[in-house]
């Protein structure tokens, strides 16, 4: 086969990637700095300025980061021991429990959040158990919703990296006199860092960007995801795209890419990062 026909065969793929992955991302930037008005297209930095100066927006950004941070920490505190305990069980128990852990992940996100909502709203069982104290509408509801939705996404990569650890390494550490704590600190923990990093990414990014969880569980809390959703859908005018929405999405995109590159820096060793297993 000649070089040219070989390259020709690759072109549709490149066109596909450019057209449906790169161009749409560029569009976010375009809509952040251009206004499409009936009298023409205007360049403006007004909307980017709005994102950085408007008090409500800044608060929403901080709030989103805050919820995401707290939820990720809780997921880590709950999830790391869970992954560790799971990995220490017998083979049969392990495969059964990891399927059990996977199952909710494959349930529709909206249905899962609705299921959580129906526990903590006016008629919810939890509300009745708490004697009428309704969690819906509180910050705690958002955190609970996030931990509930994303915990399995954190546990699985960590669990996978734990099951990959060579048993001989652990035994060698024990033979050399290490107690459980030493073995954990010297062998198990360092080898699971890539799993931890990919687990954190999988929780933190969706937590920062979600608009469903605050919308359903505490509609008073404005997060950046909810602001964007409002600008584009629920609060959208008939005149077309709200450029403020474009600017907000652009900032969110930058935020997501920053998060991912930070995690990438920590986790250089892409291949060994324990991923999800289906």
């Amino acid at each position, binding site marked *: 086969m000649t070089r040219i026909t070989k390259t020709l065969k690759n072109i549709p793929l490149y066109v596909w990637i450019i057209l449906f992955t790169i161009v749409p991302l560029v569009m976010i930037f375009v809509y952040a700095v251009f206004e499409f008005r009936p009298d023409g297209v205007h360049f403006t930095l007004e909307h980017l300025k709005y994102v950085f100066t408007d008090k409500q927006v800044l608060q929403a950004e901080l709030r989103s980061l805050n919820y995401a941070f707290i939820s990720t920490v809780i997921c880590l505190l709950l999830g790391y021991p869970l992954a560790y305990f799971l990995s220490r069980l017998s083979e049969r128990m392990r495969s059964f429990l990891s399927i059990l852990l996977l199952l909710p992940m494959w349930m529709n996100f909206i249905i899962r959040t609705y299921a959580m909502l129906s526990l903590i709203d006016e*008629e919810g069982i939890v509300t009745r158990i708490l004697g009428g104290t309704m969690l819906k509408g509180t910050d705690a509801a958002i955190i609970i919703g996030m931990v509930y939705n994303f915990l399995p996404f954190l546990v699985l990569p960590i669990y996978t990296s734990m099951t990959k650890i060579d048993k001989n390494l652990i035994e060698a550490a024990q033979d050399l006199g290490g107690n459980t704590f030493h073995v954990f600190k010297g062998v198990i923990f360092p080898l699971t860092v890539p799993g931890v990093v990919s687990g954190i990414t999988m929780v933190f990014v969706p937590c920062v960007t979600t608009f469903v969880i605050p919308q359903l569980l505490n509609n008073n809390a404005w997060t950046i995801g909810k602001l964007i959703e409002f600008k584009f859908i629920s609060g959208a005018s008939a005149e077309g795209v709200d450029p403020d929405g474009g600017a907000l999405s652009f900032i969110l995109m930058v935020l997501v890419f920053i998060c991912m590159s930070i995690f990438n820096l920590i986790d250089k060793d892409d291949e060994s990062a324990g991923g999800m297993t289906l």
Partner: protein
Amino acid sequence: MKNDKSLIFKILYIAVIMIFLYAPIVVMILYSFNAGATRAKFTGISLVHYAELADQSELLNALKNTLIVALIASVIATLIGTYAAFVIARLSPFRKNVVLKTLNIPMLNADIVTGISLMLFFVFVSIPLGFFTLLIAHVMFNVPYVTMSVLPKIRQLNKSTYEAALDLGASPALAFRKVVFPEILPGIISGALLAFTLSLDDFIISYFTSGSDFMTLSVCINSMTKKTIPLAVNALSTILFVVVFVILVIVNFRPAGKKARADQA
């Protein structure tokens, strides 16, 4: 014994977290069998809400839409994703890296960013939002998952068997069909199943790319959460839960499916 105690502690810990993860789902399923009309009281077991489903034309229509989109999108994504895997497998290491990194952006990116980027793109090129845009969006985010599940199978291919087939007089097409294809088929099947499940599961990208006239199930349920949700939703969710469970079991018995989602982060 210390060991027994620590084992009991471990099991307890796992059990408590599993209860946390399953309580909402279990309660949702329980109420789907409630004879009463609301969640206020459990008045007895009945299948009345499953029967009600027949009258919920909005929900059923959304379910139909979801299945159609998932089916078509997963077929197209499987074709494109498999083709992409073959292209990528032959690229030089540098290009391979660049192409894979870009192709995988929708896998790593936040769904809301992917959804909005596509929505703005469709608005920009003046394609009205609806079935067609939703379909493109689903194909777009499914492709990398298919590619990632086919690519390892191509890497494992033994070149000699293909060459042997050619030496024995097979045309390249026949050799591909008889030698290469069966080897990568498990990767293609698990990629297709994964794409189908992801399509069924998606909410955020569909929400932004489907417009107001064409609703998928998750978009429909989301719009219902603004008012009191009928328990028929619980019944439908229960059915879906069972379906997902069955798919999961099938996929899990196909070893190739295991790694497909692995490079998510």
